[in-house]
């Protein structure tokens, strides 16, 4: 597996390709092989997870969230950054 990324990494964050995941009723369930970590994300978290395909940076993802959920851009970026940080802490992201 490649090196894990964090929110301050200039490269776009990407889902850990070793993660198994599915979305059910808008909520993503994610299973990591390392330690069999399982996480269920809420609807917004699941949408961010969906956007973490390595093609967008945190700002671009926050812009999508701000528009779709009708929230201020600044607040969206702060929330997305925190969320991405948490995902990175749990080794759920990887550098592309």
């Amino acid at each position, binding site marked *: 597996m490649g090196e894990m990324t964090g929110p301050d990494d200039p490269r776009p964050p990407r889902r850990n390709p070793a993660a198994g*995941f599915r979305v059910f009723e808008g909520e993503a369930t994610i299973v990591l092989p390392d330690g069999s970590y399982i996480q269920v994300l809420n609807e917004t978290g699941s949408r961010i997870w969906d956007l973490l395909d390595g093609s967008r940076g945190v700002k671009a993802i926050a812009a999508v969230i701000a528009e779709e959920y009708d929230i201020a851009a600044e607040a969206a970026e702060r929330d997305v950054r925190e969320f991405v940080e948490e995902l990175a802490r749990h080794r759920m992201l990887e550098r592309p």
Partner: protein
Amino acid sequence: MNPYQAMIARRWKAAAPYSALFELTYVCNHACSFCYNCPTGEKELGTEQVFEALRKIADFGVLFLTLSGGEPLCRKDFFAIAAEARRLHFAIRVYTNGYLIDEAVAERLAEEVRPFEMEISLHGARPGTHEALTRVPGSFVNLVAGVRALRKRGIKVLLKTPITKMNMSELREMKVLADDLGAGIHFDPVVTPKDDGDQEPLQMGADEAFLKRWWSDEFLDVREEKVPVRRDDREIAAVCGTGRSGFAVDPYGNIYPCVQWRRKVANILEISSLRDVWKGSPVLAEVRRVAEEIPRTTLKNSDVGEFTAFCAGVAWLQTGDPTRMYPQAELTARIRKKAYLEIRARSDAGEAIGEMANVFEKCGE
């Protein structure tokens, strides 16, 4: 209830399966005397057909995929199949006998498959015992080396052991071995019939005298279930997850409600989507109805129903009626109830005993 448990409960209620067991082949490099597989001689699915099946299973929303057999690593295209499963974002479990896992295979499993768990069958603590069941010299040594190679790479390993007359005196040694290897171990005191109903394997199962010892304090250190738990069918009425939380696919592409209850639902290559079959199948409708009926009738009418781990598939194989209580289930439940009542009496008398309120984890949960 944490968010994961809540998601599982919602999917059970909606009969939206999250797990599938895929028997990739019935070819095996072992000759276990109690193997439940019954190959028909039909042509097994080719690589592209397995890919097609995996895509349909993924499209259906299944998260957990168990690659099983026979021995799945006997397939020359195993790693191609596993790579496709990875591409489709399954959480992968591999059920194997471990015989083919050397350092190179373990490395490929770690790099290319990344299973969240490897389940490996262990039949004894010593080569002689294990190999008396597998009937393959060297299978014990290979298994142990394979587990070490997997653990070295951080892959979680669960050893699975059906308790038989041959290994029931080595359970503690097997636990020590598992601990030494850094693996978990699950002992199953129930041996099941073959898929075609042949009950010969039951002769190898642990006898009543041993089962009484198993549910006593004697095996508290190796038993996962410290206090025999009781059923709770109030939240989810179905006796188990058959046709509800998961399903099984055999090497010919036939879909079954679960690995044990082999009533054919359809062939995965002959359908355009699992979603349609799942909703419209009369077999699945019947299976789900029966699974909900069992707690209300069979178990309610039995004085040991609350302690019964009931498998409709085994009942069907043994009695021809999926709702009928079968001898193994009743005997085990009777012993478990007696053990529970003795422990409860000790608890009532002031002895500190945890886990008294735990309830059954349903099969398929």
